[in-house]
């Protein structure tokens, strides 16, 4: 019995001193991060392309994100909107997250909320089940004015929730992966 205890003490000592590795931790390569969102509005009847960009390459915290809008939308014009998502946290290895969303389009849905401005947005695409995704949209600018546009990406939403519309993410549930707001000018 005594030997057993001695043995156990020895074992413990071994474990104790082996466990003392003091190496530097491995810096994670964040995989799921989205750093860049670009909403490109291409006018259907010709004119200037409008791009809205949200960029936060150092992730949460650190430097504040940069939000840019290339210019105003033309009044009474229609646009085709397309979204592009990037993970550019590692500048030498930029990943296209749009593809990841396309692959899992049944688990993702974008929502567009407009306030003040006379802007109408409709889904222009659908997933395998015929439900909207929102990577492609049809945008109609109305009268001149100012306002904001909030683009929301929900992961695992309930796409069959009753009364679900392009501006009602609260009915869909799921987790918000993206929620960014741009200033919109129509002139």
């Amino acid at each position, binding site marked *: 019995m005594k030997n057993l205890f001695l043995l156990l003490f020895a074992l*413990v000592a071994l474990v104790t001193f082996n466990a003392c590795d003091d190496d530097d931790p491995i810096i994670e390569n964040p*995989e799921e991060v989205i750093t860049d969102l670009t909403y490109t509005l291409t006018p259907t009847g010709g004119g200037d392309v409008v791009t809205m960009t949200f960029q936060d390459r150092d*992730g949460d915290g650190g430097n504040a994100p940069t939000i840019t809008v290339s210019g105003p939308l033309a009044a009474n014009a229609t646009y085709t909107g397309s979204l592009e998502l990037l993970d550019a946290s590692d500048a030498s290895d930029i990943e296209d997250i749009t593809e990841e969303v396309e692959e899992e389009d049944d688990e993702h849905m974008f929502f567009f909320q407009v306030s003040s401005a006379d802007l109408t947005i409709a889904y222009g695409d659908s997933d395998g089940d015929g439900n909207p995704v929102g990577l492609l949209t049809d945008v109609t600018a109305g009268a001149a004015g100012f306002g904001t546009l909030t683009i929301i990406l929900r992961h695992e939403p309930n796409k069959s929730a009753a009364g679900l519309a392009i501006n009602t*993410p609260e009915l869909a*549930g799921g*987790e918000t992966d993206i929620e960014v707001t741009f200033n919109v000018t129509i002139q």
Partner: protein
Amino acid sequence: MPTGRFPKTVFRFSLLATLFLVGGEYVAAQTGCSFTISGRILSEHDGEQLGYANVYLIDERVGVQADSSGYFEVNNVCGGAQVLRFSHIGCDAQEIEMLLRGDTTLTVFLHHHDNFTETVTVSSAASAEYTRELDRQAVATLGDVLERTAGVSSLRSGTAAAKPVYDGVFGNRLSLQNNGIAQSGQQWGNDHAPEIDPWVAAYVRVVEGVEALKYAGPTVAATVLIEPAPLRENESPSGTLAYGFQSNGLGNTLNARLTAGGRTAYRLSATGKIRGDQRAPDYVLTNTGRQEINAALQLAHFHNQRWTSRLYYSIFNANIGVLRGSHIGNLTDLQDAIGREEPFFTQPDISFDINSPRQAVQHHLLKLETEFRPNEDHRLTLRYGGQLNNRKEFDVRRGDRDNIPALSLRQWSHLVEGAWHHELAPDRHLDANLQYEFVLNDNVPGTGIFPLIPDYNANRASAYLAYHEEGDRWQYHAGLRVDRQFYEAITITPDPPFRIERFEHRFNTLGASAEGNYRITGRSSLRLGVTLRERAPQINELYSRGLHQGVSGIEEGDNSLQPERSLKVTGGWRYASNSLIVNASAFVQPVRDYIFLEPQPEFRLTIRGAFPLFLYRAGDALLYGSTLTTFWQPNDRWEVDGRLAIVRGRNRTEDSPLVYMPADNLRLGVKYRTGSQPRGWQLSLSALLVDRQTRLDAEQDFLPPPPGYALLEAGLEKEWGLPVKNPSAPGRTERTLHLRLGAQNLLNSTYRDYLDRQRYFADAPGRNVELRLSYEW
């Protein structure tokens, strides 16, 4: 509920102890009725004297009462077979059969009654709950069991985790000792339940003051002790096989225990548990299942009368589902989730599947101890405690990453302790220890997420000395503890290019406590205690950085924080007659440099929206409150108990209430036994009344505290003795079958508790009917 029957192992021990201690003079020629039976009645757990216990000679119909020190004497007893019955309020009665042939001296150990828990006394012999009580509840989790101690509430994350709150402190401020070793792991997280199997724990106590100074771990006053039943050399082989069924969640629990005495005594315990989704009165709580597989081995080797070695090893494995509807991405999601009829993702039927979000936890504890008693006045103990904690938390993630943990932590901890107990005189003793602890905490790479808590190494050396004097009228206790801690945090810079930075911290902390107890009369006593304790900031307070998923806030540590200094003054009055115990106590506890999370006025903008930012800061806090415990046993059949706990906390720096203070709560219970103590039916009914927490400013929470609620609980219990092959054999084995039917939330009330973080998303579970069947041999 107590069955009246004395738990068997203890019964055996007591009986044997009795036989060993039968001394006195054998006057062989003496006949007739002139013998004297005398002795002392002590508490089985801590050897405390049980004053005013009753002794009854069943055949002679003679009864006496012990004096305040538990001493009794019955004169003029006839020789021959006698059955003595010993009882004491708050203890299970015990019967001893003996063949009386001379004057006899006995030492009788009685066991603290199940449901009744004494509040913390000065010597902190304290709130012991015995195995049977824990067994009754073991189908539940440890948190639920702890809640039955006066002043203890639970901070919950739905059904997934519960942490004790005592006198308004929890988490980093209330340490847990599992089998004498500070429970390591990720105790900073409010959604991290202590990794302990309730089937193994036999005693659960809360100690404070001088007694709490003995133990390692961050604490500002009290410590929760969780201990298995001790092993004794004279233990006869026994076993228990227990099965429990829970209607809410269709839970099944199986536990088996084997015990044997001898020079090498052992106890082996194994538990398996599987439970599906639980149900609130109106809907299923989707993804709240739980699976557990635990085992423990307890070994004691009695080398000789002076030397004992013990080994304890336990493994805890759990896979815990977290309510799917409580997983949120940002503040908007939280606001969407609040105020819904039923949570998002609610499924119509319960399921045994556990999907993300979930926690997978594994905890190993190895304890080695050797105790040497060179003579009656000294006891030396050398102890090693090693723990390995693996915690993996899985979130709902994009791109098939659900099976890659979002948080994966591995912690090794080692504690070496030398302890010395020295009896200076029969009523005075010294206690001292030296400890060294080493903790190595690593983030296991591969999560693809920057860690919330950095890797760190922590070292702590400490010394403790206490003096106890237990006179007849006055009792004094005084203790001192010093800790020297060294942390090395290995962090990653917040901005690219990411680099590794190492930070070192050294903290010296002091603990000092003095307590006194004065016996006014034989039955009532007053006590007063003053405890100063310093608590070094923990790693999450210094270095956490990132999004705290459950609360949708970004939390950032402050590495310039200094130790908290707390002064706790407690006072109490206790009255104990042989049918009534009243315990009233109050405390006030100012804390300097109290560390708290301060909400910042500006939000932090991220691609997932804006998040509130919380920074760890130090300020001044004040906690105060009181508890009232009463226990009344008008006769053998009825028992009534009541426990009231009130606690208040204020952050004086911000002039705001402290968050997570338990609301005022009252627990009332009544119990009735049919027929004679050992084998009757037992009925119990208890109610828990919890008030609304009104002391909270609107801006301190996303949702105002829920209204108060009342819950009803009922139990029905019976025990059957099974025929034994050879009843007259020495060390006769007794076989019993124990049945218990219980119901929690009997009225299926819909409620939410303020201390439950899941209250934003869903109601608490509804009615649960429990069946427990155990066979003991």
